[in-house]
């Protein structure tokens, strides 16, 4: 099967679980994959082998492609599906199809339309970071970093959004704005309507232009920037370095990669909101197996979110999340 | 018999293309029941005048009357509706569409937008019957038909239109003799029905057989018109070129020397040519005659390495060695062989590039060092060649497509000169070009022979072969059947050889032959 992983040799029974990420090319998903494999290994017994089948759509934003993946897994006849929907509404019918064929579905990372259950899209559980809280943590950290850097000047921030219609990143954006409004009224929100784009290349170009425009047009330099996901942050980070603004502008990212972690060390990044992708994959698979075994499962499982800063880098809990294991 | 009143009259028509004056104050009259020959050099404006008539080109000035009424077509459709049909110089057919669809294009019979196939088919069959091609399957895509048959389809279109004025723009330049004769019969059918026919051709003999009246254009002006029976051919030529041409076939003295090109038993991949052997000597012009489809083009292409070869040997004595049959044009150019294609626009030239690029492409070596071009050299070399060949153009930087046919052909020949080829393979080099340019080309061939080159000259125009060549070979069904000194051939004997002694067609060759060739059977001897 797709990336089939054999656990145990002459098992009497095999439980096949399809794990479907939003995309396959970001490091985050590699860690989720590692988590799901870890759960499968730990839960496999000599009597029952748990097999993970890992497959995503060709491109990250291809909703129709993800529907195709779900349907093809149903055709193959898997015992359960773990899914991170690309689009909260678009996958409802596919999940409903799974439900009607008796295949349980655990949603992770990004939510399904709240009205999905009415359409027959029953799900076992939703295993994810509380992205709203993540956004709040980012805002708090950014305010703190700006205060340390600027001192007296009235600081302004820029929010660079990811892509319209992506539930998880929209939650982060809302959490970020809510925290600023509620707890940091002195921080001005300079811009919250720019989309940085879905690839690092696009983000680099857009962030450069945004910074350029603020500086020249409004004669203000934003005190802080929040980039709501990893590819996005990658481009923004590079733009800041390029424009030589890493000192002046505080920067908080969401999700780590090697470059960003290095940035945390050299001071060009002031904080990274870190999720627990391994835990997410692990817990989602465990929830599904528990459901198959007839046990009750919490409808919402929070996998936690932390903020990594230059200060708490060495903290083992943070360090583990900054460099999570990945499936090879 | 007094000439009837004109059915169509064009008055003081003018047309400019940018700096070029294509038509300058031209008047013309065509009478019902008669065939008017429209003649003139290349670029004289014949096609342009007829395009004006057919509504494809809008004149800058002038007016026209048709059957006494004012006639000013808004476009080709309007012209056709008014009863003016045109058969263009280049075939105008949609290759992917069937014969029926091509014939009915633009005048489909339909009901609520849906085609009425049966009615269409009936009309197409009727039109083809008239042309003696009733057996043609109207559902065949035109792209699968041989060239001659395609022309028939095009002519059937005019028949179908029941046009009152029918224009033929060089219709026989790609027609085999038998179809040309069928065409002449159609012309008679048309004129008997009261239509006025305008006929453009560079073949004066043909004009004399087919036409009643003539009109001559020179440099966009009408320079003479009248009834053909009142003029002689030298008169016509003088009108066309604006001077008396004493020698249509200039001969430059040359004497054949040792063999230069030797072809032994050459057989093409698709068995044309088959077992061809010939020798061309230094200072010799060898003509190749034959029917259309006899494989003369294939023979030249095989010698030049453009087509795959099954077996045989080709030797060019300059290199002294045998030329590998598979070596391709590149190898041929190196061993001193040059080729002028019969398809000038499609293969011979890059119409959208400069004269210099066209003339020098075959041999950039002397103009470059280690692959690096000397930027001024191609222009310099081309300018010299243009002067030598008398090319009328602004300069070596002009785009080839802007030149008239004859001048384009000279550029193609200039390439062979630039390549310094010892062996010249010329495929129908005089097709579609005017008398003046033709005579220039004959002189060039003579000069080449005098300079010790070997010229292999393929033509469908027997008079020029007999006048220009030292020896003439005849090709039949892919085989070279006879090689004799030119003086020993007559039009009749050449035709008999081309057709094969056993053929009954031999005696159909009239004394006026030369416009085309006869054809051994109505079906194409060799489908593509």
């Amino acid at each position, binding site marked *: 099967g797709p990336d089939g992983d054999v656990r145990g040799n002459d098992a009497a029974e095999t439980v096949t679980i399809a794990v479907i990420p939003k995309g396959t090319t970001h490091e985050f998903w590699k860690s989720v994959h590692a988590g799901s494999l870890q759960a499968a290994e730990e839960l496999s017994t000599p009597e029952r082998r748990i097999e993970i089948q890992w497959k995503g759509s060709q491109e990250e*934003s291809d909703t*129709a492609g993800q529907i195709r993946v779900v349907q093809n897994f149903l055709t193959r006849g898997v015992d359960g599906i773990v899914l991170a929907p690309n689009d909260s509404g678009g996958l409802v019918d596919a999940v409903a199809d799974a439900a009607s064929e008796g295949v349980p579905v655990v949603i992770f990372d990004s939510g399904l339309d709240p009205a999905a259950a009415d359409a027959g899209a029953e799900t076992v559980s939703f295993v994810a970071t509380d992205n709203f809280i993540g956004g709040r943590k980012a805002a708090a950290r950014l305010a703190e970093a700006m205060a340390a850097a600027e001192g007296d000047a009235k600081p302004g921030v820029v929010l660079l959004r990811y892509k319209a219609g992506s539930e998880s990143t929209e939650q982060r954006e809302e959490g970020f704005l809510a925290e600023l409004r509620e707890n940091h009224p002195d921080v001005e929100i300079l811009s919250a309507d720019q989309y940085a784009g879905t690839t690092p290349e696009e983000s680099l170009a857009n962030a450069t232009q945004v910074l350029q425009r603020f500086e020249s047009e409004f004669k203000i330099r934003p005190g802080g920037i929040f980039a709501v996901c990893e590819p996005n942050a990658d481009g923004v980070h590079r733009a800041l370095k390029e424009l030589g603004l890493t000192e002046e502008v505080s920067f908080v990212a969401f999700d780590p990669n090697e470059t960003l972690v290095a940035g945390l060390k050299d001071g060009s990044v002031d904080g990274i909101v870190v999720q627990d992708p391994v835990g997410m994959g692990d817990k989602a698979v465990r929830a599904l197996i528990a459901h198959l075994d007839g046990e009750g499962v919490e409808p919402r499982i929070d996998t936690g979110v932390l903020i990594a800063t230059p200060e708490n880098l060495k903290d083992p809990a943070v360090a583990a999340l900054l460099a999570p294991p990945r499936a090879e | 018999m007094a000439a009837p009143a004109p059915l169509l009259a064009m008055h003081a028509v003018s047309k400019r293309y940018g700096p070029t004056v294509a038509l300058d104050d031209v008047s013309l009259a065509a009478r019902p029941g008669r065939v008017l020959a429209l003649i003139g050099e290349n670029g004289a404006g014949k096609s342009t005048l007829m395009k004006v008539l057919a509504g494809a080109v809008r004149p800058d000035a002038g007016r026209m009357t048709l059957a006494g009424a004012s006639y000013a077509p808004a476009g080709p459709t309007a012209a056709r509706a008014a009863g003016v049909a045109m058969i263009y110089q280049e075939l105008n057919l*949609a290759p992917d569409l069937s014969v029926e669809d091509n014939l009915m294009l633009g005048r489909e019979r339909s009901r609520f937008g849906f085609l009425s196939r049966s009615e269409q088919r009936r009309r197409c069959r009727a039109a083809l019957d008239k042309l003696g091609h009733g057996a043609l399957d109207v559902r065949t895509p035109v792209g699968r038909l041989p060239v001659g048959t395609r022309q028939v389809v095009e002519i059937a279109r005019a028949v179908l239109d029941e046009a009152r004025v029918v224009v033929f723009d060089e219709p026989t330049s790609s027609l085999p003799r038998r179809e040309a004769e069928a065409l002449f019969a159609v012309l008679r059918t048309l004129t008997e029905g009261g239509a006025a026919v305008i006929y453009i051709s560079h073949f004066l003999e043909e004009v004399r057989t087919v036409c009643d009246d003539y009109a001559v254009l020179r440099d966009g002006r009408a320079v003479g018109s009248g009834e053909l029976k009142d003029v002689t051919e030298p008169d016509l030529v003088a009108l066309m070129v604006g001077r008396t041409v004493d020698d249509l076939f200039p001969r430059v003295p040359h004497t054949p020397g040792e063999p230069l090109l030797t072809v032994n038993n050459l057989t093409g991949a698709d068995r044309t040519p088959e077992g061809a052997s010939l020798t061309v000597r230094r200072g010799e012009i060898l003509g190749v005659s034959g029917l259309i489809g006899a494989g003369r083009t294939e023979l030249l292409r095989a010698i030049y390495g453009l087509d795959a070869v099954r077996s045989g040997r080709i030797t060019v004595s300059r290199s002294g060695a045998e030329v590998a049959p598979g070596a391709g044009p590149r190898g041929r150019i190196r061993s001193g062989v040059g080729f002028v294609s019969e398809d000038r626009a499609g293969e011979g030239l890059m119409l959208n590039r400069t004269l210099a690029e066209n003339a020098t492409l075959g041999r950039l070596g002397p103009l470059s060092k280690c692959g690096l071009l000397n930027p001024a050299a191609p222009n310099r070399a081309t300018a010299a060649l243009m002067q030598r060949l008398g090319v009328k153009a602004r300069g070596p930087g002009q785009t080839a497509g802007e030149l008239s046919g004859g001048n384009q052909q000279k550029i193609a020949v200039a390439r062979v000169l630039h390549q310094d080829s010892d062996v010249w393979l010329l495929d129908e080099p005089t097709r579609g070009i005017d008398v003046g340019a033709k005579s220039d080309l004959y002189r060039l061939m003579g000069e080449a022979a005098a300079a010790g080159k070997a010229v292999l000259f393929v033509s469908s125009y027997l008079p020029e072969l007999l006048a220009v060549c030292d020896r003439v070979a005849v090709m039949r069904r892919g085989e070279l059947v006879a090689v004799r000194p030119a003086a020993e051939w007559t039009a009749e004997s050449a035709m008999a050889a081309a057709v094969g002694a056993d053929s009954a067609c031999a005696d159909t060759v009239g004394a006026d032959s030369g416009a085309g060739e006869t054809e051994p059977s109505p079906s194409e001897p060799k489908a593509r």
Partner: protein
Amino acid sequence: MTTASLRSVLAAAGPALALVGIVAGFAFFDWQQDGESTFLTLRNLRVAIGDALPVAVAALGMTVIIAAGGIDLSAGTMLALCAVVLAAALKAGCSAGTAALLAVACGAACGALNGVLIASLGVVPFVVTLGTLGAFEGAAKIVADETTVRPGRDAIPDWLGRLTSIQGDSLVLGLPPGAWVLLVLALAVAAVLRLTVFGRHLYAVGSNEKTARLCGVSVGWTKVAVYALGGLLTGAAGVMQFAQLNAGNPTSGLGMELKIIAAVVIGGGSLAGGRGGAFGTLTGVAIVSAIESGGFQLGWSNPVQQIALGAIIVAAVAADRARARSGG
């Protein structure tokens, strides 16, 4: 009728043989792998059809355009624009019928715009539609206010929402309802191409534009009509895509144009114009679907599948051209 349809069947025979070969191959290897073939099941057929519907309908439109010697690079973004228009109309309270009509009309208008530009400017279709490709995506973003438009379940009646659905109660005669719509559209396109005056003019323009003009075909109007018809079908494809996702996403179209063109070309259409037909194109769509679905069932990874599809495109067209050359 008989000879014309016979000819069209024969023209489609090459691609059809390829399809049979590919399906047989996948069925065999799938059977060898598991001892039974999940590839050759009715369910898998339904999944493949439901998935391919938008591309298939749009490819019918592209067939018309390519037969007339054109190309439409803007088909993908135009499709997304139409889906967004449909979604926005529904959200604004239009009835589903009106909204669908609007989407189709929008497609026809976009197509007509392409046609007018091509006919009036003397610029090759490739360049014109390269320009409108971006313009249509921009327009879609404006209509959608740069986000995904979700009209909500209640605004979407069953006939629309279940057009591409494979759930038991949606099926009509065993297939998703959209499959029958596709069939009707394909028959209509085939009839237009083969049996109407417009069809003759269209092939004439594609085969030899100069001849068509000299024979009195109004080439300009034919082109406008061709692109409008192509756009109309692209609009219908937008309706199909909306039905798949229950939402209109302004960025979901980019890249789709190449899939659409690939289907037409595999199905025997020639970019030189004058060739191609409705059923050939459907065969082309089926070949692509078979590779995608079969590759999945055999457990090919995403990259392997991409490479295989690329190879098949080249091989299919090379074989077809070789066959045509040898006069078959």
